[in-house]
């Protein structure tokens, strides 16, 4: 029976559209192949090809604000390049790059062994660190005097208790003990915890912290991109969490530092391993990262840096990565990607401090740039 099903028509149309692509696993490029052939005696720094190119990326919301700024600046330098980054969470980035529905993924949580095993056979993935960020605890508390509370200090036990649900109001004595100067103003308001509803590298970093500092948390919840939260509301993305906290009096959540800045919410000073209360900051995470440089893994899959040593170290710091295949099926896209990543690891690093992220430590930055040489297309390196 000649069923002219809509599906057949749709598939035919889609096949025609897809047929315009390179026909491989990578999504289509819009323009002519680059005029700078790979491997030739080109410039010493990688540049994108000429002709319109679009790159599709998806993943972590943690660095999303940074990537938006990078994409804008890169497109100013190279107007023929358009990059669409959809912030759908680290889990989404890993899934996207695994299913090859995106050109590059992004995640703060390095891919686990099981996730790497799920990649298509014969492919190899690179973790390219791009920035360091702090996971801060944001809060929205209206004090007894009617003004917003500022300068809240919390220690590990406080944070664990709040997110376990054992500490239920802001006037709890254990919180007051850490905040002698504002204790009188802390209201009886019920605490509403807000966590991530989606699979998140930020959650991974935050729960790694809780897992390390709280035996109760370790036994009942554990660490990971998605965990079974004992209490609280879920919200999608770093943006959703900060938005949700902003909308509710008494709410507390965890986000990357820049989201706290953008939302205007206070972020708590957390007691670090040296016993000092430290606010999330670029300097704080740089200090934390420097203290573990020696043990940075060769495959770049560095776990979140929890309770690093040092007076200035902020206790919850995380690298964030771009995930890209070693072998790029489309030469134009691959060349653009390498150029963008190189720019991110050089000029891009200068943008980070201004918006609350920390640039990579020099040695890591160098190693990451070295990694770019590994990216090939059709067997030969894009940037030899």
């Amino acid at each position, binding site marked *: 029976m000649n069923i002219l099903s809509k599906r057949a028509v749709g598939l035919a149309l889609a096949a025609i559209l897809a047929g315009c692509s390179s026909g491989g696993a990578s999504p289509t490029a819009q323009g002519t192949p680059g005029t700078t052939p790979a491997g030739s005696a080109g410039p010493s720094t990688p540049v994108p090809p000429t002709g319109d190119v679009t790159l599709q990326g998806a993943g972590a919301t943690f660095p999303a604000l940074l990537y938006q700024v990078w994409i804008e600046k890169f497109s100013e330098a190279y107007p023929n390049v358009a990059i669409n980054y959809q912030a759908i969470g680290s*889990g989404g980035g890993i899934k996207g790059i695994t299913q090859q529905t995106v050109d590059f993924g992004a995640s703060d949580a390095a891919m686990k062994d099981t996730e790497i095993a799920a990649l298509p056979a014969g492919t190899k993935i690179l973790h390219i660190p791009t920035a360091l960020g702090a996971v801060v605890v944001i809060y929205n508390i209206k004090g007894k005097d009617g003004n917003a509370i500022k300068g809240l200090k919390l220690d590990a036990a406080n944070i664990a208790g709040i997110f376990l649900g054992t500490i239920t109001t802001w006037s709890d004595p254990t919180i007051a003990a850490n905040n002698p100067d504002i204790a009188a103003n802390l209201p009886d308001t019920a605490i509403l915890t807000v966590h991530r509803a989606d699979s998140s590298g930020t959650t991974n970093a935050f729960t790694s912290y809780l897992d390390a500092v709280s035996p109760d948390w370790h036994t009942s919840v554990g660490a990971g991109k998605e965990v079974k939260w004992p209490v609280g509301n879920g919200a999608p993305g770093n943006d959703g969490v900060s938005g949700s906290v902003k909308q509710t009096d008494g709410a507390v959540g965890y986000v990357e530092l820049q989201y706290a800045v953008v939302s205007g919410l206070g972020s708590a000073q957390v007691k670090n391993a040296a016993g000092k209360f430290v606010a999330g900051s670029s300097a704080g995470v740089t200090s934390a990262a420097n203290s573990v440089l020696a043990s940075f893994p060769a495959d770049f899959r560095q776990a979140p840096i929890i309770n690093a040593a040092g007076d200035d170290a902020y206790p919850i710091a995380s690298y964030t990565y771009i995930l890209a295949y070693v072998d790029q099926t489309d030469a134009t896209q691959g060349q653009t990607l390498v150029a963008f990543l190189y720019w991110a690891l050089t000029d891009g690093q200068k943008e980070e401090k201004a918006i609350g992220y920390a640039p990579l430590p020099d040695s890591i930055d160098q190693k990451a740039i070295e990694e770019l040489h590994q990216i090939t297309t059709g067997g030969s390196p894009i940037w030899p």
Partner: protein
Amino acid sequence: MSAVPTPTPPLGPRGLLGGSGSRLPDLVFRGGTGVFAWVVVAILGLLLILLVLNSRQVFGQFGLSFVTGTDWDPVAGMYGALPFIIGTVASSLIAILLAAPIGILTAVFLAELASRRVAVPLTFAIELLAAIPSVVYGLWGVFVLGPVLKATVEAWLVGTLGWLPIFAGPPFGIGLFAAGVILTLMILPTVISISRDVISSVPNHQREAMLALGATRWEMITRAVLPFARSGIVGALILGLGRALGETMAVTMVIGNSQRIPQSIFDPSQTIASQIATTFNEAGVGLQTSALIALGLILLVITMTLNVIARLLVWRVAGPVTEAA
């Protein structure tokens, strides 16, 4: 919304082709349009096949305990749908409990009590309620309804009934109750318009008989009209319920997205639809995706069953009714 009698093809059972010989262009036309018509059946069939095939993995691993399991833990590979089934049912139940009295009373008002000059604009306004996109309801719910509910209704309920676990605070605005209220607004137009149709189709002799016996207007309505229309009204409520179960965006934005079973109506929760919406794009290939699709299948089965029951009930009173929107 009109009630039309059961349609039969015009000009006899063989329709336009009647008894005359069929010509080729007409045969092609009939065949062509037939193909398009059966496409709809094909889409539905494909949809069901796809859902069933992709759910096999998770049902194979967990069996029926997928439906009764209370743990949704992708990290540990544990999948239980109960928190979302409860969230779906609870939010829709709140919606129906609120929409039933308001909706039926309004339908009665529009069909029996209001003059044409009042009824028509009012019906117009209520049908516009149905046209508002879900995401706009969600936006309004997050920034307006949530805080208002928190300050008024929820505070009052917790104050007076908070000793009951189901009303236990603290109320944060966002949560199961807020989702229920938004759903109420979204299903009211459905409940009202179908109820109104059903009530209008109650034959006049029922009303006249009641009035002749000396009943007041209200008694006429409650003792003659409503009982006659009862199954149709129940059908309208079930159709509204079916709508509520499948609503996604507004619910996702105000329900609090928590994967635990809610203890109180002010707790955050998650429906099947909102769970799929928030996690499908990042669900791990394999078991997690299969689990989400299985959730979708459960939802589809529930809504399909309710739809069929509802239409049968409505048809009995008012004849086949189509919702135009």
